[in-house]
């Protein structure tokens, strides 16, 4: 298949793996930021193929993992209302809130629709004028332009029964927060290619300089990721700390100005909570005041709901690479893929779920490593 098969070619991938092994004189620890990259790494077994050379830490770039409990709870409240059609990307349906998840709300009678685009949610609103349609606007800078577009378009069309529950976060503040943590182990980053295809990479240049950390803008196919790793290893081996672009077929330094403009039209920067990590200053978006009528929190009076995540939650330490999943006291006992407690156990490529399956495959009962809980 054009644009896919050429990036999944073993004749290119195998020499790249050898090249990485030859280039690395020691073992390096790097973080792929985006959940899509984690997906490729786990599904293709790239981490296993590079064992002992590069340790990949699965970063916080997955909306399923970092959308805070508070916003999930608000989603559950909205989806349970009989006058609301709640529209969401598919994999948010399994994310547990304080009491249940969206699938259970649907079983209890709530109307929850999976959509592939926020514009489909807007279309739902135009078809169901007797209902309120709320779209769960989650994600990073990648989904922000389309989500912004839906709101912008709703205003343009005068659609009144459409609103968005915003839980948008941005990548650069999270990278800076990880680097600033005293026990940080990350030595290089693979930045998220699609985020940069919107935003470009100028925001990453001060971070690379300040923390002296290589950042390679990387795509999502196996060969993209191997190339990104090789570029990062080369930087580490030669003591460089620059922003480089592996994903040249999609990303330019300035990103996509039209998309950025639409995001800036509709959203403004704000402090945001990250599930398991806590609040990071100026790390997310909210609707600008002129679009307030499309803000579901305001429309349905949810502004005052605040849910604190328990202080002994370990998901944040897993997401920032400070704790390996088996070191969590709940791993494999109270927390399993069937009954996930934290987000990294939810999706099959979540760090905890990946460890869980691997342990079972190797004939080990997946349980917490005694005495390692922090």
């Amino acid at each position, binding site marked *: 298949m054009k644009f896919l098969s050429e990036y999944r070619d073993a004749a290119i991938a195998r020499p790249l793996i050898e090249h990485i092994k030859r280039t690395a004189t020691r073992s390096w620890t790097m973080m792929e930021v985006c959940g899509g990259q984690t997906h490729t790494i786990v599904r293709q077994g790239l981490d296993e193929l590079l064992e002992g050379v590069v340790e990949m830490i699965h970063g916080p770039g997955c909306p*399923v993992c970092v959308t805070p409990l508070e916003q999930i709870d608000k989603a559950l409240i909205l989806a349970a209302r009989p006058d609301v059609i709640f529209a969401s990307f*598919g*994999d948010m349906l399994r994310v547990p809130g304080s009491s249940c998840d969206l699938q259970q709300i649907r079983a209890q009678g709530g109307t929850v*629709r999976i959509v592939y685009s926020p514009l489909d949610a807007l279309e739902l609103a135009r078809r169901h004028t007797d209902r309120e349609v709320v779209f769960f606007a989650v994600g990073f800078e990648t989904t922000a332009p389309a989500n912004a577009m839906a709101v912008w378009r709703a205003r343009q069309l005068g659609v009144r029964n459409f609103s968005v529950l915003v839980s948008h976060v941005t990548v650069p503040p999270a990278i800076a927060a990880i680097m600033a943590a005293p026990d940080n182990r990350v030595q290089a980053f693979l930045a998220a290619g699609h985020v940069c295809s919107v935003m470009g990479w100028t925001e990453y240049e001060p971070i690379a300089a300040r923390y002296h950390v290589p950042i390679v803008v990387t795509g999502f196919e196996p060969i993209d990721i191997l190339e990104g790793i090789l570029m990062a290893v080369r930087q580490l081996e030669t003591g460089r700390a620059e922003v480089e672009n592996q994903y040249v077929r999609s990303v330019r330094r300035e990103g996509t100005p039209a998309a950025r403009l639409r995001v800036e039209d509709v959203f403004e920067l704000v402090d945001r909570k990250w599930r*398991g990590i806590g609040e990071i200053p100026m790390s997310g978006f909210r609707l600008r005041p002129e679009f307030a009528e499309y803000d579901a929190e305001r429309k349905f009076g949810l502004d005052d709901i605040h849910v604190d995540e328990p202080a*002994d939650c370990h998901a944040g330490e897993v997401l920032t690479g400070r704790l390996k999943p088996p070191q969590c006291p709940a791993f494999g006992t109270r927390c399993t893929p069937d009954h996930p*407690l934290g*987000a990294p156990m939810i999706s099959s490529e979540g760090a905890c779920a990946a460890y869980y399956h691997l342990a079972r495959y190797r004939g080990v009962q997946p349980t917490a490593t005694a005495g390692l809980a922090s």
Partner: protein
Amino acid sequence: MTTASSLTLACPAPFAVLDRVQLGHGSGGKMSAALVRERFLPHLENRALAQLGDGSVVNVGGVDVVVSTDTFVVSPLEFPGGDIGSLAVHGTLNDLAMMGARPVCLTAGFVLEEGLPLSLLDRIVQSMAEAAQRAQVPIVAGDTKVVERGKADGLYINTTGIGAADAQFRPQPHLAREGDAVIVSGAIGRHGMAIMAAREGLAFETTITSDSACLISLVDDLRNAEIEVHVLRDPTRGGVASALNEIAAASAVGIEIDESALLVPSDVRAACEVLGLDPLYVANEGVLLAFVAPAHIESALTTLRAHPLGRNAVQIGRVLADHPGAVALRTWLGGTRIVDLLPGDQLPRIC
């Protein structure tokens, strides 16, 4: 099951006890298995049901009879490559075929929704009749019920199949053994993606057609060629991944499959990429998995490939003594990943 109250102190996201049926209970994954295990078997337990196969073998006056039943709730009712009528015939006949039975007859029960166009009903019943005729299996009993508008999705069909068991050829899910070859009879993922693409709300066009087909004659060819087949399975809902997991668990063996050997049509792969789905978990309705003794691999492939439905038959893996109960996939690059049962429905990914 963990209770919510025991979690509040220690977990970031207490997970409530399930107290209602969810769509995921119908997915063919872990939730479906738990529903059967926890809600049905405790009340209905008996020796025939305990086999937990595609159907049961019951002894009727000294003759082994195979019984299987299936209910069809597909939307849309007509889709590229088939409709609910032919699907309801193929599905149940295939379940009989997977047990090595020779189908004798079918019954059909209909739940019709008020307002269903009679012309549509005509087309569906005619399609059923044609499918039954092609398979030379008569539909010998039927029932209809009508429910108010809004209480059913147009039309539901239940079919039950009766077949004669074959004492010489009786593959079963628990009979896989170390060394068996895992063979798939054709390209995977077509039915599920044809349905998804045809479903309202997906704004892309594809050329994908369902693979819905009756597999009786394909199984007959294996039988007549005297292939030593230990397990036969049609990987319907939950796809190849779920079927292999069930077999690995039932036989207490490990299964390893080779990603490069799997045939996924390019249109199916493209649709899966766009929607963030894994073709291994997508439903098939005209493909079978056969676990074949090592000495019979070549003859099994030759036999299958001589049949129009088995032209693309290929060995995709083998049975191991290692990691009993688990299915491992060797990626095209030589890495390994575990292919587990999904908890519920496969959900499209954001990123």
